[in-house]
């Protein structure tokens, strides 16, 4: 069972995640957008959206550090377990609270503002449900698991993180995850569910984060030949000249 849950399911989700993005990028560039609703409502968005997104950037950064940096490395540079714990919980809590508050504002806005709600698709609602559950479970793990230590102390850097790196290295060790607390197990599973949904939702906009804007020239020139109006050249037609 644990092999199915912590090896098969994650790999299936990862496959869907990667293949789905490739498919979406190939066939639905036109649909690849943030689908902003700022035009409809700005007052709540102005507070909620930056809170949520900046909080989320912190959360993602925290996960990268927590999951990808082995404990031996931080030990080697002399960061003690306690120091790490304080920093991780402190940072995680701050980012988490921002994310949750932002998310509550945004969901409230989406539900109560008529135009925004009517522009919400079924896929959006499913995605919101997964996203909210992942975030709430993550906060539960931080608050209940790491601060109040309900159900005993658990160092995820010796369990979940190692499993995650083994998963990325294609040498998965399901036992590590099977021994983790239920909160961590559920968090990881729902997160993988979200990854599987990802390419089919508006979340794809994460991968169009416009970092290139910092370095590109302000004005973009393009030749007419680069872009064939609204459709690409048919197979078998070569351009002349």
């Amino acid at each position, binding site marked *: 069972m644990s092999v199915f849950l912590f090896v098969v399911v994650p790999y299936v989700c990862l496959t869907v995640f990667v293949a789905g993005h490739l498919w979406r990028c190939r066939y639905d560039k036109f649909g*690849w957008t943030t*689908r902003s*609703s700022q035009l409809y409502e700005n007052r709540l968005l102005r507070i909620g959206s*930056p809170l949520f997104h900046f909080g989320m950037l912190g959360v993602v950064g925290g996960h990268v550090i927590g999951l990808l940096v082995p404990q031996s490395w931080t030990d080697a540079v002399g960061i003690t377990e306690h120091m790490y714990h304080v920093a991780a919980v402190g940072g995680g809590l701050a980012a988490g609270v921002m994310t949750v508050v932002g998310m509550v504002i945004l969901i409230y806005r989406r539900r109560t503002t*008529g135009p925004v709600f009517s522009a919400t698709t079924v896929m959006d609602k499913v995605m919101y449900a997964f996203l909210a559950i992942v975030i709430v479970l993550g906060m539960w793990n931080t608050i209940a698991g790491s601060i109040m230590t309900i159900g005993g102390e658990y160092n995820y850097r010796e369990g979940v993180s190692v499993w995650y790196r083994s998963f990325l290295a294609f040498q998965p060790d399901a036992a590590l995850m099977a021994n983790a607390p239920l909160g961590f197990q559920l968090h990881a599973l729902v997160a993988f569910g979200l990854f599987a949904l990802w390419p089919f939702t508006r979340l794809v906009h994460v991968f169009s984060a*416009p970092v290139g804007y910092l370095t590109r020239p302000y004005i973009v020139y393009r030749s007419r030949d680069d872009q064939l109006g609204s459709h690409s050249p048919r197979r078998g037609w070569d351009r002349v000249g």
Partner: protein
Amino acid sequence: MRVMAQMAMVMNLDKCIGCHTCSVTCKQAWTNRSGTEYIWFNNVETRPGLGYPRTYEDQEKWQGGWELNKRGRMKLKAGGRFRKLMTIFSNPKLPSIGEYYEPWTYDYATLTDAPAQEHSPVARPKSLISGKNMKIEWSANWDDDLGGSTANTHRDPMLKKIADKVKFEFEQTFMFYLPRICEHCLNPSCAASCPSGAIYKREEDGIVLVDQDACRGWRMCVSGCPYKKIYFNHRTGKAEKCTFCFPRIEVGLPTVCSETCVGRLRYIGLMLYDADKVLAAASTTDEHGLYEAQRDVFLDPFDPEVIREAEKAGIARDWIDAAQRSPIYALINTFKVALPLHPEYRTMPMVWYIPPLSPVVEVVAETGEDAEDKGNLFAAIDALRIPIEYLAELFTAGDVVPVDAVLKKLAAMRSYMRDINMGREPDASIPAAVGMTEEEMYDMYRLLAIAKYEERYVIPPAHAEQAHSLEELATECAVSEYGGGQNDLFGEGSGAPTPIAVENFQMLQDRQTSDSLAGPDGKKGRVNLLNWDGKGSPSGIFPPKGDDS
């Protein structure tokens, strides 16, 4: 020198009667889709007035366009790249739908479905945004024809700038119409604001377009454009803008707004410009110098060196010819009667305007004086500061000198041509008073008053050797393997619709303008092969025998 070609437009505001035909035909052609209800690529504003979206010209509020920083270098008014990325999650300067208007329809069905009742049923307005009943409070042209009334005009950002000198009294009212499309700027701040790099300027003709596949809906372009001519399609989540009807331009046809303009006030043509000089010109310190600086960027298409450089830059010979015949070049650089709209935004706009003389003429006419007399008009131009200063706020960043000069040229043309039309001896001193020769004045009159279609629209078609890349050209396989085209495989319904294209456009035009009905031999020579049973040879199918002697 780096020569580039730019498709440009000039509008003669004296001729605009505010009929909105351009707006309506443009909307029918481009934005009659869900999500684009409030999008007007072309709109006509009554000035003085608020514009669309309301008070868009108030750049202290909307932060569109460019400004100079302390070191005199160009920066986006709304902040640089880093600032843009930091505010990407909630654009602080995006007009809400309320600044445009909430689009609506009516529940027409109740008019026919309603049960018998005492009072006749009413079609109530329904919002196209929320679907609910709504109260109509504003629309794209709510203040149409209300120029100079006190209800709204005090909020006109341009009038505010001169308001301390002016008590806007009823006797001083004036009004004119300002049709607006995208300016297709040489230094577009929308493109510079786009985090995704989806907005680009075409190298060949300078048309600014949004790549719908690359746009990610960050909305920074909407804020970045000081003319607010980029709109956010709230259904697709992508930015859309005026395309200068590029599929038509590519085959040598004018834009829809120009083609359908009943006043024939629009001119389209090429301008050659030096791309290397754009940045320096846009960075001119004195705002009053921006108009002249932009004129300096344009190149003289008759100059042999310019022609040589243009050919080196890959601009085809017929395009250079078109640039020489360009009515835009004549109006901007030869006659110097066209002015840019809001040069102070430093975007180097390429849709220019001939300011209206009518506010002046009307005042003179109302006094009972001769409104075509040079002396009266010149005196009125000098005396009527309010309309002149207002026009200067629109077209020359507040500098009245160029506006004065243009209006005097138009006034001079009016009185000079009056003499000719009345059969009197033309007075050479009138053109001389505005620094023109009689011949130049007559040429200007010809271009402004009676120019034919081919003179108003000098549009070289894109080159046929690039045919496959032209949007409207039907040279591709009719039955698309990607599911394009229509469902029928055979017969008339098969394939994609045949649009106007480089080849058949000329053919169709020849057919429309030829003297005979069709073909070289007139009606009698036509053969209907559908009725031919294959026997014998119907007359007309082969050339007559023995004629070759």
